[in-house]
């Protein structure tokens, strides 16, 4: 049944390959589709897609829908909206997943509005489960549990959309793992007829784009020295760069530190930033709001340096050092240099 199918809207990277976030969603989508006994479907909208489509099969994609048209690249809302709406109305999948990127967050809400269905932003977990409505006692079987931290990180909310289809969610890059399913998996490729109104095509015109290569690879870092609001200033943040340079790490930051202007947004770790899984995570002056922890709690080893012994971060740390970061870090750097000899 179509309602057991899971469809992933695939974004294209600047190099015209399927974006990592979309492959991560395919990995999660494969699990969900298997659990539901449905098909994993991928919608790829762009131009000159040739090779990109082949990338998807090993992730266990059953159906690849390919819309190849010059009006679909680079991404613009209305042409993508027109093609995707037509596809969803025809295929009627039960679940649709989008990356919580500037593209996914632009497109998904507009789709949800048209289909009058629910949409949960920035999910950190997606599961299949049952839901019984407290008022009507109706039970909805095998629906999507959309789990996300909410409200200043004080709570974890499980959101369901029991009465409308499709069930839609966005997920940040790096939150789900990207894993090959079967290198020789066979997909069915379906060519999508592209029908875009002239008005939808002309409403927004791209005059120029300046997209930089990713400069800071925080996702791939094995050692991360991350600073929070407790670092106190942008000046103090320089110490973290010294520390990271010494131990071969990369500097990360909490949203509070980024918002305070201590460091650039590209380094932000957490629900609204990047999710990381390094070998070692050194949390400096970070209290550990749940949104931040969502982005780093899978680190293999966590060291927390904080003046507050009750900081939530300490509960997930392997080592806690109670003290002022500006004193402890130089001491730790000295100790490291000494023992390296």
């Amino acid at each position, binding site marked *: 049944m179509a309602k057991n199918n899971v469809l992933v809207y695939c974004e294209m990277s600047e190099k015209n390959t399927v974006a990592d976030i979309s492959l991560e969603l395919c990995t999660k989508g494969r699990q969900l589709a298997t659990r539901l006994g449905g098909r994993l479907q991928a919608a790829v909208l762009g131009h000159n897609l040739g090779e990109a489509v082949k990338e998807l099969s090993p992730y266990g994609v059953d159906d690849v829908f390919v819309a190849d048209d010059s009006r679909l690249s680079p991404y613009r809302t209305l042409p993508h909206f027109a093609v995707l709406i037509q596809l969803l109305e025809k295929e009627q999948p039960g679940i649709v997943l989008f990356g919580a990127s500037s593209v996914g967050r632009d497109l998904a809400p507009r789709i*949800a509005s048209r289909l009058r269905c629910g*949409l949960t932003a920035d999910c950190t977990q997606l599961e299949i489960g049952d839901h019984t409505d407290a008022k009507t006692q109706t039970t909805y079987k095998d629906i999507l549990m959309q789990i996300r931290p909410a*409200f200043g990180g004080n709570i*974890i909310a499980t959101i369901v959309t029991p009465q409308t289809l499709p069930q839609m969610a966005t997920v940040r890059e790096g939150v789900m793992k990207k894993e090959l399913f079967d290198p020789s998996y066979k997909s069915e490729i379906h060519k999508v007829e592209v029908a875009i109104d002239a008005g939808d095509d002309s409403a927004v015109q791209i005059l120029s784009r300046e997209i930089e290569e990713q400069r800071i690879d925080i996702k791939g870092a094995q050692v991360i020295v991350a600073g929070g609001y407790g670092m106190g200033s942008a000046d103090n943040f320089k110490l973290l760069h010294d520390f990271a340079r010494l131990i071969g790490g990369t500097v990360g930051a909490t949203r509070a530190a980024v918002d305070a202007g201590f460091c650039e947004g590209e380094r932000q770790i957490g629900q609204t930033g990047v999710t990381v899984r390094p*070998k070692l995570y050194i949390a400096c002056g970070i209290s550990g709001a749940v949104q931040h922890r969502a982005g780093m709690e899978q680190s293999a080893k966590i060291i927390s340096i904080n003046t507050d012994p009750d900081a939530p971060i300490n509960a*997930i740390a392997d080592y806690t*050092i109670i003290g002022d970061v500006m004193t402890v870090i130089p001491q*730790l750097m000295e100790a490291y240099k000494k023992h390296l000899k």
Partner: protein
Amino acid sequence: MKALKIAVLAKQVPDTHNVGADAMNADGTINRAALPTVFNPEDLKALEMALQLKEEVEGSTVTVITMGPPRAAEIIRDARNRGADDGFVLSDMRFAGADTLATSYALSCAVQSLGAVDVIFCGRQAIDGDTAQVGPQVAEKLSMPQVTYAELLMEHDDKTLTIQRRLERGTEVVRVQMPALVTVTSAATDCRYPNAHRMLRYGNNEVTVHSADDIETDLSRLGLSGSPTKVKRIENVVLAHKEAEQVTPTEEGLGRLAQTLISEHIL
């Protein structure tokens, strides 16, 4: 140039940095009464962009619309003091419990009550939800093109706006046909301060509060009943304690830690 009718959608939000234990109701909705409030930061930036456009096109008007409890009138007053012509609060128990779909429906009806609007500005997202959904949803409901992540309004003519968008790793400049909806990010210019002259002149003026009956709506699409998303479960965050080893910040303690990390090949 033809005068523009500009709308700004704004939200009064709880200051999520100061959340207390009574912040949530038993049914999983937010107990807004228990929280200090602020003008949603990106909505203030949207207001600034609207005011800049108003200044450049003679005769243009800026109307600010917010949905919330009656005390949300505070942000309409604030917006007026900063330069908005007027605004109103949509407030009705029938709006309560709305998710983004029901919210965008109510707001789109409110915008339609103004007649033909040329541009709608709103913040990209509100700090109490971070969903960034309402802007694109209002645009869809009004069949307008949308420009999200706007950081700079570069040019305008009778029919179009030229806008710089801030993307993850760069920028994009687009030209959009009006009428259009624009969502503004935190990278945009800060809003001007309330003007003392305007405060004296308009500060005490009443703020209009509209109920669902004052705008044309389908009641079934409002509030909880118009909201497909349901909160199934709320868990207070309880941390799974694992045994953390406390390291004393002395030469000896830190030395031992460094040694352990090096010998375990972590560093």
